[in-house]
């Protein structure tokens, strides 16, 4: 579904991503893990078009993504749940969800989507008329996820959904994501620093360090790898 080949990108003269190749198949849950500054967020920004790559190719369902203007990429079926949530603070919860549904498919499926989102993340229903900026971090994260789902995406990209949250809240959000995936079969691409949880939920994983993919494999291979166990899982 999403194929990244030999991608390099960075800011000004400083390269952040070096020759990255990542493949996400339809229906897969892929996790990209790695330490701070490894280039995980830059990778997502490049997929969404906010950062321009210096080399390589990205195709989404056979379409050359780099030839598509950034605002059009959401309309292809890519939903980006950004790092640090980035909900629209002066819009209500409901209006935030409506912004998620700016895509054609999001508008078409609005009724069914909103019912499912409220079922998965009931707190959004309770707080539907509250300004998003006045909610707690965990609630904002759930709104950011709901907003992504409202576009009827083919691919849901999640950038560190646990960032800045209490461990119990982060656990709850992971549990919700697994439930959403189980019920919808949605393709997901997750970037995470909480390596143990991320690898546990994903089918396939990539380890990103200093802009390079240093390791890839399925869930079991990665968790069995000595380096991953030592560096990230603390075993």
């Amino acid at each position, binding site marked *: 579904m999403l194929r990244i080949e030999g991608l390099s990108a960075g800011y000004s003269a400083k390269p952040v991503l070096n020759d990255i190749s990542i493949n996400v198949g339809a229906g897969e849950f892929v996790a990209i893990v790695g330490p701070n500054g490894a280039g995980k967020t830059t990778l997502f920004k490049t997929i969404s078009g906010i950062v321009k790559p210096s080399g390589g190719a990205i195709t989404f369902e056979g379409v050359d993504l780099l030839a598509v203007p950034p605002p059009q990429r959401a309309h292809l079926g890519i939903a980006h749940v950004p790092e640090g949530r980035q909900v629209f603070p002066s819009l209500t919860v409901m*209006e935030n969800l409506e912004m998620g549904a700016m895509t054609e498919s999001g508008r078409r499926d609005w009724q069914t989507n909103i019912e499912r989102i409220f079922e998965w993340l009931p707190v959004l229903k309770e707080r539907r008329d509250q300004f998003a900026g006045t909610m707690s971090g965990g609630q904002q994260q759930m709104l950011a996820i709901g907003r992504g789902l409202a576009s009827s995406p083919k691919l849901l990209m999640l950038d560190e959904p646990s960032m800045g949250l209490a461990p119990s809240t982060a656990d709850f959000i992971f549990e919700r994501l697994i439930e959403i995936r189980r019920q919808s079969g949605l393709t997901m691409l997750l970037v995470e620093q909480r390596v143990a949880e991320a690898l546990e939920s994903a089918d396939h994983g990539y380890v990103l360090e200093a802009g390079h993919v240093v390791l890839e494999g399925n869930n079991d291979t990665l968790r069995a790898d000595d380096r991953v166990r030592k560096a990230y899982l603390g075993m």
Partner: protein
Amino acid sequence: MEGFLQALAAGLLIGAVYGLMCVGLGLIFGVMRVINFAHGDFMMLGMYTAFYLFTAAGVQSLFGNAVGPFVSILLAGPVLAVFGYFVHRALISHVSGTRTASLEGEGHYAQLILTLGIALILQNGGLIVFGSVLASIRTPLSSSAWELGPFFDISIFLNKARSIDMIVSLIMMILLSLLITRTRIGKSLRAAADNPTAATYMGIDVDRAHRTAFALGCGITAIAGGLLATNYPFHPFVGLEYVIVMYAGVVLGGMGSIIGAFWGGMTIGLVQQMSTLILPTQLQNAAIFAVFLLIIFFRPQGFFGRMVERT
């Protein structure tokens, strides 16, 4: 007492029009974060557009002297919106929006110089094209009044043209708030203002949202300018007199708040008219800024400054 009520009424009437004028600028600033020094001159163009639509384009003969001016004023709005659309497309978009989002200072220096340049071109171009003779959109309503009362021996006189100006302003304001709060376009403008990057992730074309806001802002201020022109004569440099008031209104209302800009403008209208009770007329504008500084001293974020944001 009678003088007080009369000044209050006059303040409310002019304040509504000032409010509408400030909202045009507030919309542009709120959505784009661009400081548009040329906004007063866009308003000047709106005044002349309404003037020529009325006198030269046949609106006068079609609608008569009473209704005609208001028809021309309402038509000047869309004309200036189209003009604003192309100015944004040709000039402003090069120094704002996604093109400059990653630059230091987000391109504000270039924006200041560009909008100042546009202001100079419009002022001096206006002088060449329209001449320096004072113009005004006169209607017989400008020199007649409705009498309110008498209540307890006090009668208040409301200038007919100014009363209609206020009604038109309020209707425009209601329509605009409905557009901003209820429609998909309005909500996407607010989303683009809140967080341009996240708006792009939602599939909102931020540059197009900016263009819409700029066109709308120009159109709204043009209508407010036309309404002012039914009572105040104007010339090609009139924008300078109003642009300061516009900024004071936007800052008073709270930078970024569109509804706040209306109340900011209303406050300025009220202060301007009420100050004549105790101060000579020449000090009207001094009074505006004395009150402005006082309010900002106690409430630096303005009436409707953003309180909902959380980091």
